[in-house]
């Protein structure tokens, strides 16, 4: 992984922008949908500002530890804390306002076998790290689908902020209050 490509710049194919592990995409193109696949223990965090009509998605992998601050400077989207901070900074740069941003989150699944104690799982630690950074910055989660054991796909449609969560065999809007007609 080339850390300098943490903002995925791949051209969209049929309006689809794909976000890999440790990557982020922000868009104001209403024809685009941003998607990330294979959310196991990782977290997919979507953000949307309805008025500025800007949306973003970051796929973060690990909580940040003091030993990794140098790596987080080179590859911020890899870590929960720096990835979420980057997401908000990029959203603000496109005109979003914190009080209008809607966050929808998925992932944090358990991926190891029964022999590993659940409380030490990376997915669970990612969720705690996310809640901490959001609490410290006074931001709520609008909707979420977290934990469990399933792999998830998360997408956000820039036209209207609709967020869709897919798991093997199912697909549904995530937090259908304001995003869905």
């Amino acid at each position, binding site marked *: 992984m080339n850390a300098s490509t943490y903002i995925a710049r791949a051209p969209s194919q049929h309006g689809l922008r794909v976000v890999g592990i440790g990557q982020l995409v922000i868009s104001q193109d209403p024809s685009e949908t941003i998607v990330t696949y294979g959310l196991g223990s990782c977290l997919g965090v979507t953000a949307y500002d309805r008025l500025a009509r800007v949306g973003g998605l970051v796929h973060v992998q690990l909580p940040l530890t003091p030993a990794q601050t140098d790596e987080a400077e080179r590859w911020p989207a890899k870590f929960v804390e720096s990835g979420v901070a980057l997401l908000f900074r990029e959203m603000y740069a496109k005109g979003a306002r914190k009080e209008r941003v809607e966050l929808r989150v998925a992932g944090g699944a358990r991926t190891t076998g029964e022999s590993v104690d659940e*409380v*030490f799982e990376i997915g669970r*630690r990612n969720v*705690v790290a996310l809640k901490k950074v959001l609490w*410290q910055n006074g931001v709520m989660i609008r909707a979420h689908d977290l934990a469990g054991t399933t792999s998830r796909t998360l997408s956000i449609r820039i036209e209207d902020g609709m967020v869709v969560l897919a798991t093997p065999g199912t697909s549904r809007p995530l937090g259908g209050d304001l995003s869905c007609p």
Partner: protein
Amino acid sequence: MGEIDALRTAVVLAMERLCFASAEGFADERPSGSTIDASVAFTGPSSGAVGISIPNEMLIALAADLVPPGEPPPDIASTDLVAELANIICGNVVPRIFGRQVYALSPPDLHAASQPVQARAVVMFGNGWVEATLHGVS
């Protein structure tokens, strides 16, 4: 749920939800060092107490984490934070061991419980540890 598992689960839950701290391991014995202690008594179909001990440096760090980095730490005494953690942990231990019956919890006491220890759990975190003990169940 067994007593040690209930203590561990309650500590992990309280620390994750109130303090955003993730457990890193369990230990059989508490590390050395001074602590601030608190205990909460419970009365009902069974009676006893749950005590907790946390190093003061850890309590200071936990309080600071409740506000954004760079902001002055909140005006919260370490004794208040440990007392509330004792309240939350006791309130989550009791139903896990004894079921969801009516129990009365005492306000937290800033001392270790005096009854004999019946079960002990030590949970390790990045910036310290928490010991939770179950006392004198009758």
